[in-house]
């Protein structure tokens, strides 16, 4: 494990209007490490993710990815990122394969037909590869956006509720995929507000409450019940 963290967040504050959604958030993530970011609705999880994804600028503080400042050098950061946001980034009237090829080309990748097929097979969409996305379920669209991310082999993966809308089998499968990305040296940050089994792949849990990281701890030291209790306490305190 490398010493220097890939993702560094130092004292980030974000203000919308009169409300400081993030007050002073600091968090490091190393290569090959997965951090689950927990917090109640409106705690600022997605805001933090968007700041890392170069979609929002922090009001104060800084975040770097592989040494590049996300606010000042977004162009250096973007090629390193894989983002699975709330929206699936798919066009309903294109097929799964066409969607994948489009995002690969726009992202500046060489999208060889074989790679696309492999990526689609990797998320279990090979049989509907040439069907229009309009006919897909929400879970299938989500899997397609995961295929897009995996095709790019990013160094940093930012996932917003990656397990939402997936059934039990798909969850298990996604866990496997994310483990593989971790093993390949990617840093993972996934936002979630549920306490399901998906926390199993996280090495660390960070709880966002009151605009700060209220808790940052190795997962091993806490059982799922402890997490639930802690989170509930924090949610109550700040509610």
């Amino acid at each position, binding site marked *: 494990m490398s010493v220097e963290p890939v993702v560094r967040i130092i004292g980030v504050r974000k203000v919308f209007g*009169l409300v*400081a959604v993030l*007050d002073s958030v600091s968090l490091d993530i190393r290569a090959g490490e997965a951090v689950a970011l927990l917090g109640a609705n*409106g*705690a600022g999880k997605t805001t933090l993710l968007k700041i890392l994804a170069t979609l929002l600028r922090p009001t104060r503080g800084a975040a770097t990815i592989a040494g590049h400042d996300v606010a000042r050098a977004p162009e250096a950061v973007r090629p390193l990122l894989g983002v699975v946001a709330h929206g699936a980034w798919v066009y309903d009237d294109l097929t799964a394969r066409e969607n994948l090829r489009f995002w690969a080309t726009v992202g500046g990748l060489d999208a060889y037909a074989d790679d696309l097929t492999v990526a689609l097979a990797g998320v279990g969409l090979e049989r509907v590869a040439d069907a229009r996305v309009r006919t897909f379920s929400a879970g299938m669209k989500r899997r397609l956006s995961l295929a897009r991310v995996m095709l790019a082999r990013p160094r940093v993966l930012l996932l917003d509720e990656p397990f939402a809308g997936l059934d039990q089998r798909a969850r298990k499968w996604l866990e496997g995929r994310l483990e593989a990305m971790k093993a390949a040296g990617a840093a993972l940050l996934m936002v979630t507000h549920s306490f399901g089994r998906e926390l199993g792949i996280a090495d660390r849990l960070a709880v966002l409450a009151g*605009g700060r990281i209220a808790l940052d701890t190795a997962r091993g030291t806490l059982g799922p019940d402890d997490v639930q209790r802690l989170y509930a306490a924090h949610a109550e305190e*700040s509610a």
Partner: protein
Amino acid sequence: MPDHWSFVAAAYGLTAAVLLIYWRRLATKEREVEASKRLNAERSREPSITGHPRSEPASRTPLQQNQRPGAPLP
């Protein structure tokens, strides 16, 4: 050649009126901002606002509620 003084008065009058209204509006807005700044300065002496509303007095712990200035601790 008629002088059309009324047209001259209209042109100068309209210009003066509009410029004056704009000038007055600037002054009014400046006063408003001053007032809201003072309000903000007062507010900022309290703890900063975060994503969640501050706790209401009712949700304080009993210990805090019992603390009156000068009153002996239970």
